[in-house]
């Protein structure tokens, strides 16, 4: 590959990603060789498009069209919850990282182009309704609106079972 970043740049970027992940309650895939290749892919995309779009998805090069697949992608958290890994498997859940279970293969959750356009119009057209349930961390009060609470609270690091449905 002509656009391969230097080993040093890859190492540094990977360390930064790992640190940020752990600080936020996420985990990089412990298969370091595999993860290194993904990080190389992220850097190749940074070079090509100006942003780290998912190495396992075809970016258009138009940032607005690619927003949902800029890492961490919109689909990471639901895929972690359902399969134990994100689509490209850069991120895995704690039990997968610890080797207690293997991640399942992750089918593509991103809708095809026509469906994405339709959803975008739909989102713009429906104001004022709750699209997601709101979850509250009972330890620190962190609120988030999404299908499921996070695996670990990004603020105080407590596990998912400390969350309650807030609204």
């Amino acid at each position, binding site marked *: *590959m002509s656009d391969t970043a230097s080993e040093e740049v890859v190492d540094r970027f990977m360390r930064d990603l790992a640190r940020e992940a752990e600080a936020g309650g996420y985990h990089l895939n412990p298969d370091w060789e*595999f993860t290194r*290749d*993904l990080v*190389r*892919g*992220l850097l*190749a*995309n940074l070079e090509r498009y100006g942003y780290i779009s998912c*190495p*396992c*998805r*075809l*970016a258009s090069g138009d940032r607005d069209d690619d927003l949902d697949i800029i890492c961490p992608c919109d689909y990471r958290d639901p895929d972690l919850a359902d399969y134990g890994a994100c689509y*490209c*498997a850069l991120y895995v859940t704690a039990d997968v990282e610890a080797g207690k279970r293997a991640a399942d*293969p992750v*089918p*593509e959750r*991103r*809708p*095809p*182009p026509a469906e994405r356009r339709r959803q975008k119009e739909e989102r713009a057209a429906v104001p004022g309704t709750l699209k997601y349930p709101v979850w509250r961390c009972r330890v620190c009060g962190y609120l988030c609106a999404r299908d499921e609470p996070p695996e670990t609270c990004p603020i105080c690091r407590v596990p998912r079972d400390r969350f309650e449905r807030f609204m």
Partner: protein
Amino acid sequence: MAMQHVPGVDRGRVILYALSTCGWCARTKQLLTDLGVGFSYVYVDLLAGEERDRVIREVERWNPRLSFPTVVIDDAKVIVGFREDEIREAVGV
């Protein structure tokens, strides 16, 4: 020409649509290589212009989600993702 050929045992027309940055695509390519199957592959992310559009339409015909890797065997069987068992079975090794 965008399509690269890897020589090997003839198990039909095996085409791998892949991304050069994707770990699962790399594993799929490695698996086909290790199995000794003859196949062609193309890195869609490295294409540009009309050629890219043409190959994208080709992939969408088999896999409307346009996800990778997509393996097409004999213009009939389609395997989306690194499904090792399915790939082994489909190429009969």
